[in-house]
């Protein structure tokens, strides 16, 4: 337990700025995606094992709370992918750019690219929730 406490206080107290935040965000988004993935593989297998129960699962997926979670999931997947590509690119093609200044810059670029991909998707998904669950925009 002491190592978890050390980790958590270290995460908060360490002042590595962009590189540190990119590491934390990569870890959190990765854990978020894998948690969803474990649930998603099992719930999707109901399509085969118990199709009548899959209707219930679809209703959960359509709920507002789950919809908000999915909007977050899309961000997790986009950021984890863009930041992963950044790490692979630096490792394989530009290891000389593993400097504090340059990684600060590239981490911010990765976040911006992920946000640019995410915002239109999130907007459209939010529109779908408002349309189907709240009857807005003529739904």
């Amino acid at each position: 337990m002491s190592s978890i406490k050390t980790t958590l206080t270290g995460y908060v107290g360490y002042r590595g700025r962009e590189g540190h935040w990119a590491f934390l965000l990569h870890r959190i988004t990765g854990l978020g995606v894998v948690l969803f993935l474990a649930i998603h593989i099992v719930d999707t297998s109901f399509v085969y094992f118990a199709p009548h129960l899959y209707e219930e699962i679809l209703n959960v997926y359509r709920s507002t709370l789950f919809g908000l979670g999915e909007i977050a999931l899309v961000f997790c997947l986009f950021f984890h992918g863009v930041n992963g590509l950044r790490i692979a690119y630096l490792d394989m093609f530009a290891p000389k750019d593993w400097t504090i200044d340059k990684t600060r810059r590239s981490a911010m670029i990765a976040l911006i690219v992920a946000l640019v991909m995410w915002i239109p998707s999130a907007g459209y998904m939010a529109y779908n929730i408002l349309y189907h669950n709240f009857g807005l925009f003529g739904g």
Partner: protein
Amino acid sequence: MTTTTQPEKVVVKKNFDQVAWTWMRYSAFLLIPLAWGHIILQDVVVGVHNITTDYAINRMANMGWKIYDIALLGFAFAHGMNGVRQVFRDYIHKPETFRLVSIILLVVWFLITLVGAIALLAIQPVVS
């Protein structure tokens, strides 16, 4: 006087973690099109409100999507579970405990992948 010596080349036998590390990187490249394609299509373009049980059955039974989904299942969940293992490695310092955690993760990975694979391989299209 300076002498230059060539660094000695040493061949190291690959251990499991080197293979796992390589797996993380190359599966990641495949997951960019596979996972992004899946979530953009199902969550954004189609949207959960338009997905029905029949739609899901017919899509999973389609041979092209079946191959896509099997690749996604195999690469994504193995990548994710090895990632979880790497997170545990940072917090568990006793080798025996880490080994036990690794075995538990391997079993969980295998069982969930098996459930998903059976559903994907066995499903038949709905005749309507």
